[in-house]
């Protein structure tokens, strides 16, 4: 298969892309970094052939500038296939880059398989109701891969570090301020047990019951999107689903979740799912191993007492 060019604004994700490119059998992998020495070193350490762009005129907040820099790298390095990370930054760049180089583009790819010259990509479709397998028929391809689809490449025999110079136009985007998000650094994707709270929870005062249960089980509290974005009871880091995290815990205990596809797409790979809902016909129940029709507050209290 062709040579693959990889780029992510996050070093850890670039290392995942390195693994992805190797696993699909890329003839060679060329890793590009932009104004990020540490990332370049990490990639060299993992055996990549790195092309480091160092140009202060490129501002990562200016997607047009990043896409243009990558397009120039592609031109100079003669690569047709590009892997990006499908974090927000990567997705924003993907469409713009694809348009410049006239590539077909797929984002949020959750699995890759090479089939002759083609790369078959899986991604969610219809809001997560289905999984589509798609290929880009265009010779030029931009594929943005969801974070954590592949393991980060480990350090090994050193690769090489090369400078790459590209031009930058005056920018129409100025970065004024960066505000880091309130420090909830929980990693729900790594948890073996998730206690997931939905809008069926009537009061924020009941949240400690879920936290106590998660603690007793050695798991984490997660939530459906509205609990974080509308009610703001929990941080966005804890959202399960299409626009949140895709989790594969051993056990997911769901409290007051109706089971819309944008949620279930984030939990359907759990080994065991139990759903606690007052509505016995909640669609979540159709996708659960254990179904309990009851008030979640009572069940949480009883579980905490029993454990």
């Amino acid at each position: 298969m062709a040579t693959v060019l990889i780029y992510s604004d996050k070093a850890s994700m670039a290392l995942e892309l390195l693994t992805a490119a190797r696993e699909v059998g890329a003839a060679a992998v060329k890793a590009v970094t932009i104004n990020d020495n540490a990332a370049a070193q990490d990639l060299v350490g993992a055996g990549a052939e790195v092309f480091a762009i160092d140009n202060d005129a490129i501002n990562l907040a200016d997607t047009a500038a990043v896409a243009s820099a990558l397009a120039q790298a592609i031109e100079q390095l003669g690569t047709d296939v590009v892997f990006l990370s499908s974090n927000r930054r990567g997705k924003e760049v993907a469409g713009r880059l694809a348009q410049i180089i006239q590539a077909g583009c797929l984002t949020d790819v959750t699995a890759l398989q090479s089939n002759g010259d083609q790369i078959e990509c899986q991604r969610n479709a219809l809001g997560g109701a289905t999984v589509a397998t798609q290929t880009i028929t265009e010779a030029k391809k931009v594929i943005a891969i969801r974070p954590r689809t592949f393991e980060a490449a480990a350090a090994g025999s050193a690769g090489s570090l090369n400078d790459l110079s590209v031009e930058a136009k005056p920018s129409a985007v100025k970065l004024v301020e960066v505000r880091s998000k309130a420090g909830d650094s929980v990693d729900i994707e790594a948890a073996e047990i998730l206690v997931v709270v939905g809008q069926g929870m009537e009061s924020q005062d009941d949240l400690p019951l879920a936290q106590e249960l998660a603690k007793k089980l050695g798991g984490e509290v997660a939530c459906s999107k509205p609990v974080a974005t509308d009610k703001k009871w929990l941080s966005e880091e804890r959202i399960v689903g299409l626009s949140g995290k895709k989790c594969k815990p051993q056990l997911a205990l769901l409290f007051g979740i109706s089971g819309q596809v944008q949620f279930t797409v984030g939990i359907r790979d759990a080994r065991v799912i139990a759903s606690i809902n007052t509505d016995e016909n909640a669609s979540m129940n159709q996708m659960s191993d254990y179904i309990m029709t009851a008030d979640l507050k009572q069940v949480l209290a009883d579980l905490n007492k029993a454990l």
Partner: protein
Amino acid sequence: MNIVVALKQVPDLQQIRLRNRQPVLDDVPLTLGNIDKNALEAAVALKEAQGGNVIALSAGDENIEDTIKEALAAGADEAFLVADDQLQGAESSWIATVLAEAVKKIDQVDLLLFGEGSADNYSGQVGSRVAEILGWPQVAYAINIEVNGSTAAVTRSLEDCDEIVEVSLPAVITVLSDINEARIPSVTQILKAGKKPKEVLELDDLDVELPDGSPVETISNLAPDSQRKKVVVKTVDELLQALAAEGVIRR
């Protein structure tokens, strides 16, 4: 200030049924994408605060004339539509070309808003592609937009931080659903929507010809195979016993 909002006509996802893991789309009503409605709301809020004109832009099949009424009821002043049966389910790069050509036909656009992702495809490509075709700057994942003369201050929400950027206009901005809560139009607004101006073009009017063969081919599109036990448990005790038997908790 002219604000154009791109809204996609999609099947109502809540009403899609599955048969043999295949999505059944017959008779599913059409609507506009949820996040696209947040983009519209953002435009209407800007207009209400500082004046201007909000134009709903959509490319779709002939049903789009009817579907777009939702946007006209929710505050768009007029609609600019490209209605052509070739556009049903058309690939993202084609849609981007069509939308960009349409924008070129609209006078003096200051802001071009998109949803972060369409309800059905959710690929987040179209806005970025249109920005590139027009040669405009872009900011995606916006949770706040303030227009100050010839620039806009936009808060872009990333996974680990928020970035406040100043972007010169005209610009493409894509919004997250968190930016606002889209209003639900009143009955009078719905009745008035039918009378608002609409410009409807076909692909020929735009001088756009779609190439043969899509740049992206779909090999299969199936609901995941989900075999769950669906065992009803009556008490917390029963639940704990079952989970212990699964080996996922210790008692």
